[in-house]
């Protein structure tokens, strides 16, 4: 993958606001590539609350997080956006001028490079990253004795593995790593698990047959000489403290959101938010726009509907960068045959 992908706009974040920006840009003949760190589209709506009802989307008395995402995907389908999931934008390099901006955008994982005329940051609260438990000195062991994800199972062969958590990740990796590990221990705060019932049953059988250990409690501190982990101390339900020897600790505490590399792109920031104007939603760097929860301006409300509005206005200015010589004609989808053609609904 050495070829650059050339496109009009790169949208960072495939949440509801990033998705709707594709629609508004698409109506103006602007092509988009979307990049998201999650393996699926939808952002917080899909990751945090897919089943939760939302009551303040105009025109929808009630829609679930996932329902909204599905509808947005159907709505932008005529514009065929390209999705790059499981990828995080690491660097943004301006290579144009203030009048004719151009950006080189690179992702971290497999290093895809994009060349685009405008960048729309719709990254919500930032990028989803594994939650790191607040255990003293845990950073000193990260990458050697502490891992928040499993990339290569072989790394854990013949190791004493301690998995912490009670959800699907914790239980899936418990049953998958148990055959490889020298000894596997699962630690959870209570004797109830949110994971798929058949996986929980598998784990219970492994415990019953003596092939792994289950402890109920919390990690209180790590033992070892960093970067070599030797074990952890656990405070159990009854208040007693036990030590468990282990070579690796895998905490699976779900995801949280961090601003991440956005802080390094030369944008003005205010308390981890990106200040924008309220006419074009452009940042301190011409050609870079910020819409949705990630931006701030006087009177900002963190509502999905605000993000939709911001995307529509940003698209107007993006059009001037992408088509500097074309006059933009304001049109309605109800009456414009040209817009209806783009949507594939022209009579």
């Amino acid at each position: 993958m050495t070829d650059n992908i050339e496109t009009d706009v790169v949208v960072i974040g495939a949440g509801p606001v990033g998705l709707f920006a594709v629609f508004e840009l698409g109506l103006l003949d602007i092509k988009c590539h979307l990049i998201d760190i999650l393996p699926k589209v939808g952002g917080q709506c899909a990751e945090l609350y897919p089943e939760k009802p939302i009551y303040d989307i105009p025109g929808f008395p009630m829609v679930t997080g996932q329902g909204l995402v599905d509808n947005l995907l159907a709505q932008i389908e005529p514009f065929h956006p390209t999705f790059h999931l499981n990828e995080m934008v690491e660097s943004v390099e301006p290579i144009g001028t203030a009048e004719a901006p151009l950006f080189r955008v690179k992702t971290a994982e497999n290093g895809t490079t994009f060349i685009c005329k405008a960048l729309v940051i719709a990254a919500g609260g930032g990028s989803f990253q594994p939650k790191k438990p607040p255990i003293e000195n845990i950073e000193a062991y990260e990458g050697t004795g502490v891992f928040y994800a499993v990339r290569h199972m072989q790394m854990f062969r013949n190791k004493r593995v301690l998995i912490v958590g009670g959800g699907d990740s914790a239980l899936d990796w418990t049953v998958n790593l148990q055959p490889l590990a020298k000894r596997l221990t699962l630690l959870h705060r209570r004797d109830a698990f949110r994971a798929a019932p058949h996986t929980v049953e598998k784990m219970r059988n492994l415990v019953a047959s003596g092939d792994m250990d289950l402890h109920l409690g919390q990690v209180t501190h790590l033992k070892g000489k960093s970067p070599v982990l030797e074990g952890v101390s656990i405070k159990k339900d009854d208040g007693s403290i036990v030590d468990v020897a282990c070579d690796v600790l895998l905490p699976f505490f779900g995801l949280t959101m961090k601003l991440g590399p956005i802080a390094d792109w030369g944008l003005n920031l205010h308390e981890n938010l990106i200040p924008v104007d309220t006419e074009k939603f452009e940042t301190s760097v011409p050609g870079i726009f910020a819409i949705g929860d990630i931006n701030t301006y006087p009177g900002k409300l963190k509502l999905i509907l605000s993000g939709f509005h911001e995307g529509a206005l940003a698209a107007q200015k993006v059009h001037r960068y992408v088509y500097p010589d074309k006059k933009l004609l304001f049109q309605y989808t109800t009456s414009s045959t040209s817009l209806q053609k783009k949507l594939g609904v022209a009579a």
Partner: protein
Amino acid sequence: MGVIHVTDRTGKRHTLECIEGWRVMEIIRDWGLPIEGLCGGACECATCHVFVNEDWLGRLYPATDEEEDQLDTVVTRPTSRLSCQIIWTPELDGLELTLAPASG
């Protein structure tokens, strides 16, 4: 009207005036204390985790299964609760709690 007492992560105790019907997370955030409340009170993120003073623990509505599921994603103590799941009423005048350490 009434108050809650919140000890922040530096050990400083703050007395915050409350509004009936507000989530305790919202009260803490409104007064500008560092509580994240990422999901906005939907019981979906556990970034409003607090430790409730033991004397008060039994006077709160017990945690729902949904709250327990979220508490699985942080390092808890027996007094752990999510402050977005505690709705402030005058019976909670004087509620005493401590902000839990933020996840990294």
